[in-house]
């Protein structure tokens, strides 16, 4: 059976060029970058060059990059690191209701530790309003964290505008750019951010490696104490092969993004257009300020997991914001924050396109889905025909 992977927001395969760049650092060049002899020096050189490359892609300098184990660690380090370092200045943190749990749960944990938290609502398209950020800012606000683009509905936030407001008020600004790295321009000065986190496995790099940009002068307490790596901000022998892979994948993605975005946007719109023809269907998220690869729809009267199982039986991999697919039993906090009723949020389907997907893949999904939806509706007590 032909298998079609349409869950690129969850993770992506490692590109062959990336794997090839990584391989020597598992074997012949296995040295510890902190060692003085030739093996160590070779690893150090690879690490330095990866750092230079990532810094250049972000419009930053090498000293502003910390390599991490991924997006979750990046968010934790940015948020806890700044909160702990700046708590004598204030204890107020602002974030939004649609953040990834790596941000949301970190902020809520800090709230239990005595920080004060404001969680901003979003509009029906999943947009955070810069005016609301401005209203929420207080003299004791130390940190604002708003994601660049949402992983479920693909809505892209006005980060640059929000960043300018936050800066005016003297707080630090972090953006979770895990879904936009390799897709949008991530120049940190243009975005007006102080901290920005990315994760390699979302842009055809390896899992378990990421980077956090920390603007020069921003104080940060480490999460991991130990050796002096990453300027004492993240102890532990560096994941050299992973970091080399991250840099390579990031560079490839950024150099190809204009062309690839145009291709994906066409496929995305074809998919959205086709799915819109199914009755009682809504498209979630913003139609223009949207990631080029994201499609998120709700089919009323049916539940997401049963849809995913049916798609899987036909070789199609997708995801849902349904309660039943997460451990929590609550439907997607993102869709609920956008004002969708519980039972409709239950029937959401996310298809996220990627490099391997073709127009035939899109057409295959469009051929299979209406029948699945119809069959599930026929057995739904909510559907009256």
């Amino acid at each position: 059976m032909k298998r079609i992977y349409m869950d690129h927001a969850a993770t992506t395969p490692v590109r062959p060029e990336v794997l090839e760049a990584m391989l020597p650092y598992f074997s012949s060049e296995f040295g510890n970058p902190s060692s003085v002899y030739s093996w160590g020096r070779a690893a150090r050189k690879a690490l330095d060059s990866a750092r230079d490359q990532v810094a250049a892609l972000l419009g930053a300098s090498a000293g502003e990059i910390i390599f991490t184990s991924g997006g979750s660690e990046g968010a934790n380090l940015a948020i806890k690191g700044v909160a702990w370092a700046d708590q004598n200045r204030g204890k107020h943190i602002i974030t939004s209701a649609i953040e990834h749990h790596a941000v949301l749960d970190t902020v809520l944990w800090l709230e239990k530790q005595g920080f004060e938290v404001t969680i901003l609502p979003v509009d029906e398209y999943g947009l955070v309003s810069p005016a609301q950020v401005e209203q929420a800012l207080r003299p004791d606000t130390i940190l604002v964290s708003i994601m660049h683009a949402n992983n479920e509905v693909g809505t892209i936030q006005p980060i640059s505008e929000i960043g300018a407001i936050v800066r005016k008020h003297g707080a630090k600004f972090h953006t979770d750019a895990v879904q936009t790295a390799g897709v949008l321009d991530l120049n940190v000065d243009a975005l007006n951010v102080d901290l920005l986190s990315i994760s390699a496995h979302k842009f055809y790099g390896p899992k378990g490696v990421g980077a956090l940009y920390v603007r020069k002068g921003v104080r940060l307490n480490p999460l991991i104490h130990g050796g002096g790596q990453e300027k004492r901000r993240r102890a532990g022998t560096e994941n050299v092969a992973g970091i080399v892979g991250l840099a390579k994948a990031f560079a490839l993605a950024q150099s190809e993004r204009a062309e690839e975005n145009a291709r994906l946007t066409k496929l995305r719109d074809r998919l959205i257009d086709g799915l819109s023809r199914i009755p009682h269907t809504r498209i979630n998220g913003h139609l223009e300020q949207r990631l080029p690869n994201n499609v998120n729809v709700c089919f009323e009267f049916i539940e997401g997991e049963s849809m995913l199982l049916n798609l899987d039986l036909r070789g199609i991999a997708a995801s849902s914001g349904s309660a039943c697919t997460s451990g929590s039993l609550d439907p997607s906090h993102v869709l609920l924050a956008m004002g969708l009723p519980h039972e409709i949020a239950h029937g959401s389907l996310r298809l996220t396109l990627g490099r391997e997907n073709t127009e035939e893949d899109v057409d295959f999904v469009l051929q299979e889905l209406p029948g699945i939806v119809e069959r599930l509706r026929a057995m739904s007590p909510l559907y009256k025909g």
Partner: protein
Amino acid sequence: MYSDKVMDHFTNPRNVGEIPDADGVGEVGNARCGDIMKMWIKVENNVITDIKFKTFGCGAAIATSSMITELAIGKTVEEAEQITNQQVADALEGLPPLKMHCSNLAAEALGAAIADYRKKTATTA
């Protein structure tokens, strides 16, 4: 994640539909996840002779509804009432721990249909 038996009942659910002249109808919602199940029964001489369901829910919810209709048909009302969610899960060769609550829905929907049947017969008797 699901057993072959669950996938079998999920892909070919038995007894889907409605019974227009049912003797008992029960509808229950799962407070934990918001899923909904509706069940119709036909009773003759205290025996369940026909049973149909409709489910808005996950794969496990659909499979357990289908399975409980198979277990209940041909049983007396009292026997059917005794079917537990564990029995349904066992008949399906197990459910993932996170999905055990889904099987409650099926037993509750059947219970509600039987309660409705009793109420109707009590008032007409």
